[in-house]
């Protein structure tokens, strides 16, 4: 399992390209990025062994600010793109990322199926409960009643619960972090990257410009760590119970980690044993393979 190997730690600076992020000052995504650089350093993953794939949105600009191979793909499509990348070269560590609108709105269908499919990749959702890049409309995780540009009279719709959804969809690693607590977040990242299957980390990453409701302060007052409350992360039912908490107390940390994970789809696929497909340079059928296949038609 190449992604689970812990190599000698590397300096987090090695993952910083020359180009600095251009997010708004104070954006939660800075923390998400910095921690990802530290986590990859801690695991000692060489830059060239990392493929970071995003969708579209403020947070999806992350690959441009992270020194590795990357794809800044289409709105909502980071997961199928990342899945294709993993299938093509399962030896690489693949990280998908994006925002709540990207992953839980337009990309919702892929989100559910990527978890059901159980591809070995880490999915970081920078969840700010708003559409930021389009200047502040309601998102699937916006709270009911929230006033935004698209819902000036208050959000009339319900709020999506990504944690419960992930648990229901069979995700083997379900966690929530907070961009305001970076050491805690780093430990979730390293665990997620090492988990041999699909790992979701929903990260509260406040939008300081367009979400005046769910601010850093708002989250700081409410979040508590599951591990401080003796939560058993191998128990799916208690994870489901905890996932329902929202309000005065909001849990962060590891909700669920499957203690007996089945092999991920890339590990189980007979075509993906051994070296990454992309590294195979002799292409095409052998004479014997071709002969056998033609035989079927005579």
């Amino acid at each position, binding site marked *: 399992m190449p992604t689970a190997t812990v190599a000698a730690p590397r300096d987090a600076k090695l993952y910083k390209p020359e180009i600095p992020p251009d997010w708004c000052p104070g954006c939660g995504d800075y923390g998400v990025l910095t921690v990802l650089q530290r986590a990859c350093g801690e695991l000692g993953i060489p830059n060239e062994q990392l493929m970071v794939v995003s969708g579209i949105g403020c947070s999806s600009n992350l690959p441009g600010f992270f*020194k590795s191979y990357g794809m800044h793909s289409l709105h909502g499509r980071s997961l199928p793109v990342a899945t*294709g990348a993993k*299938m093509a070269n399962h030896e690489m560590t693949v990280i998908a990322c994006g925002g709540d609108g990207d992953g839980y709105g337009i990309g919702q269908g892929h989100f559910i199926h990527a978890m059901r499919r159980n591809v070995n990749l880490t999915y970081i959702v920078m969840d700010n409960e708003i559409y930021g890049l389009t200047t502040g409309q309601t998102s699937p995780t916006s709270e009911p009643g929230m006033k935004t540009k698209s819902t000036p009279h208050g959000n009339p719709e319900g709020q999506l619960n990504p944690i419960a959804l992930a648990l229901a969809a069979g995700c083997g690693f379900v966690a929530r972090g907070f961009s305001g607590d970076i050491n805690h977040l780093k430990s979730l990242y390293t665990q997620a990257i090492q988990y041999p299957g699909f790992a979701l980390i929903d990260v509260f990453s406040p939008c300081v410009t367009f979400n005046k409701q769910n601010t850093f302060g708002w989250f700081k007052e409410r979040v508590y760590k599951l591990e401080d409350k003796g939560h058993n992360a191998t128990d799916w039912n208690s994870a489901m119970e905890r996932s329902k908490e929202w309000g005065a107390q909001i849990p962060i940390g590891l909700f669920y980690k499957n203690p007996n994970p089945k092999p991920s789809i890339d590990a189980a696929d007979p075509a993906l044993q051994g070296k990454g497909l992309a590294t195979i340079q002799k*292409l095409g059928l052998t004479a014997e393979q071709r002969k056998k296949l033609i035989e079927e038609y005579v």
Partner: protein
Amino acid sequence: MENEIQVGIGGAAGDGGASTADNLALTSARQGLHVYVYTSYQSLIRGGHSWIRLRISTQKVNNVNDQVSAMIALNQDSMDRHLQELAPGGICIYNGDKVKPGKAPEGVQLCPLPVFELAGKDALPIMQNTVALGALTGLLGLEFQSLSSVFEHTFKKKPQVVKANIDASKAGYDFAVKTYKKIANPLGKTPAKLAMVHGNNMIALGAANAGCKVYCAYPMSPASGVLHWMGAHGPSLGICVRQVEDEIGVANMTIGAGQMGVRAMCATSGGGFALMTEAIGMASIMEIPVVMINVMRGGPSTGLPTKQEQGDLNQAIGASQGDFQRIIMAPTSISDCYSSMEEAFNLAEKFQMPVLYLSDLLMSEGHMTAETSFLDREFKIDRGEMIFEDKGNGNYLRYKDTPSGVSPRAIPGIPNHLYVSATDEHDDDGVTISDVYTDPVTRKRVVDKRERKMAGVLAALPKPKLEGPADADTTIVTYGSTWGVVNEAVARLNKEGIKCNHLSVKYLVPFQEKEVTELLKGKKNIIVVEMNKGGQFARHLRAETGITATGHVRKYDGEPYEPKHVVAGIKEVLKGKKVVEAESVEPGWRTPHPPGPGVLSTSSAH
């Protein structure tokens, strides 16, 4: 000497008509006879009606012919629908215990079979097909040995099934040969070594032979055959096969794989292709090679899931927002579906762009024979400028501005070549310019760089050519699957003294404007034959060359062209009609739809 016959097998879905046709086709192929098979069927799993036409010949055949001369009616409905279509000298085989004969047309022999007596009272109902197939084998002059060897091959793990089939078919064979007259020109043999293939299998086998390593799809008729082949063979061939939640996911997953440096492909039909389109622009701006197959069927919307049409050319040309580079090509026959995969992958990788490959139901679901030597060929693999290892040269620019527009592509995983590919506009290093104040200089330069690749593509394409007498002043222009039937029609017209030739256009984008214009220069009549109502290809030809066709033959009733439709259409155009809309008028297509019992609508997936 050409010797051929067209056989029809009619029955309800679930009656076993398809396997009867398969066995007849294989029996013929084993005698070196060329076969083309087209099935007209309903979107049902059980019931309804399906009509399979098999054209069997000592010469190569690429399309259905006009008339049927022999038929097996597996049920009463088939007898009622099709008996009147039989040509003089024809034969109609049916289970005399179950099916009542209609009034045979002049010179047609009714051949009832006493199936209970021949197969035994305890035989399974499906054995009527085997008895009928045996009888047909005898009356067509095929060797019984060829048929029995097909049973031995098909059921090789079940000796008792082989015996039951051989016994029943032999009983039918002997009875028919003893009781009825053989057709006037029995088919005989040729030395050709033939395989019985269909277009979707050719696309899949071609892709495998071209080194495809990742295949993604969502089920959709008539493209699902590619997925089925890949599902069955992928694991042992080292091809990763994923059935994805929708075609948006399919296209994006394929592109994700392509980015990593594998040859990746997906296939769908028009509705699924519509969902894929946003991603096509992504592949183009990120310069990722992928091959995307659209197996066209009758549209719009769900349209006719099991019928033929060339209606998606406009969609392919207009797919995805923005002004971008891609290749659109259309194979011209079932066997060309195989060879074209070699070309599609090479073009995609050499020029780092999506290749849109327009097959259609006619090719993808049609069956025909192909020489085994044609299939058994190593494909030439040309991956273009790729970097597979770190040579420590530093300063790598993924989107380097080069004279050809092609930038050497490093596959992710190599040290010192890091880059991020973005759907946002980007510079040579992949750094986005979408968030800067403005950068018209870079924008123009990178657009020009990508567009330069199209000149390279154009230079790499094989040149189009006229088929038939070059000096004819009438040229029939087509694209894609109508190649075979139009060639046959053109040959007939020339035989009748109407001099004409045929230009089949394989590459829709980039369009070989110069060559096509040159070939059509000075022609008095330029007649476009295509399969849609609006004349999409004629409009494309005009848009690309300024040439306005003088006449049009179109068909959009769901059934393929037969040579007679094309011949008659061209004659009418030459008499002055501007647009001829051909249709299939045989009684079999016209009988009222019987209420189907317990039918389950399905196979379309959309």
